[in-house]
């Protein structure tokens, strides 16, 4: 039985796509995980989000060749996934941020007391971040990633670069005010 030339070409194309996807996984899985974790703050949920992002890429792998910046494209996908998950998770009770942070954050050479105090501090800062308006919060969170410059943040959020800068400025001011306020209450 003769194998048609078109079938051979399809098979080769499929293999090439799979290889490209595998390369994407090994190159960007860690970055996507960090983006997901910064929003969800739960390792299992973050990993799920990364997997979902790559499954979406697999479904739309025909468009992979047309993508100019694959890293930003992937971050945008996972960003949308985690925002959607977070929106849905609002109905669930909040997880204990302090204990989760104490477990996750590096703590080499620190006493248990110091770990607990620092975890509490970070949890407090993160709770203040949560109180920011969504637009400012998103820009502030993405700006923490050193891999992303303002142009790339603008691309992920689909806004202009000047909007990114102005939102970041507002976010920083709001955060300073919030932290000052909470400190004065203590």
């Amino acid at each position, binding site marked *: 039985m003769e194998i048609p030339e078109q079938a051979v070409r399809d098979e080769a194309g499929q293999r090439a796509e799979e290889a490209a996807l595998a390369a994407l*996984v090994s190159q960007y*899985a860690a970055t996507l995980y960090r983006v997901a974790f910064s929003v969800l703050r739960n390792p299992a949920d973050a990993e799920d989000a990364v997997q979902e992002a790559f499954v979406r890429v*697999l*479904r739309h792998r025909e468009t992979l060749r047309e993508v100019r910046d694959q890293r930003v494209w992937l971050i945008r996908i996972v960003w949308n996934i985690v925002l959607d998950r977070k929106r849905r998770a609002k109905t669930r009770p909040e997880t204990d941020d302090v204990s989760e942070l104490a477990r996750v*954050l590096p703590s080499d050479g620190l006493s248990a007391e110091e770990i607990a105090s620092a975890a509490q501090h970070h949890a407090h800062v993160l709770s203040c*971040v949560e109180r920011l308006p969504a637009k400012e919060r998103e820009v502030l969170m993405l700006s*923490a990633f050193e891999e992303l410059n303002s142009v790339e943040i603008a691309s992920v959020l689909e806004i202009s670069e000047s909007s990114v800068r102005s939102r970041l400025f507002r976010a920083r001011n709001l955060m300073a005010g919030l932290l000052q306020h909470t400190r004065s209450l203590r």
Partner: protein
Amino acid sequence: MNDPSEKGFSRDAAGGNGRGEAEATLRLIARLPAPEGLEERVRASLRAAPRRGRILAWPAAFRPESGWMRAAAAAAIVFVVAGGGWGVYSRVEQRQPARTVVLTPRVPAPGGFASAGAVRTPQTLNGPVVAHPATTQAEQSKVPAQPAEKPGRRARPAKGAKASAQLAAPPAR
């Protein structure tokens, strides 16, 4: 990977310095390493994922690119036009031949009286005779003058003459 000076549990972070605090915390979280074996697990999930979304496809003969839709549309247009034309044609009445009543010639009954060739002519009636009522001169004078008569006006009769004329004329019935 992490710089020791930027460790999550450094004393600087715990102390806090306002504006930079939030970014230090967020940066700390953003730098967390991915868990071990993440890539392998992602690859495994991709292998398990369905390759393509299942979409119910049309049979090849009914695919839009085969041109059947265009042919069906053309047929529908032809059907509508022809049907409409036939509908109009069927409702319009054909020209009927003139309706004539054929009278059979009257055959005289045998043994009866013959008409002897007489032709009956209907008796024509004398129409009413319209008698024009006599109008008096006084009524005539009331009638406005005709525009045609304007150019050549006749001279009015004298008052005395008018009165004598009235006396002479018999009263109109």
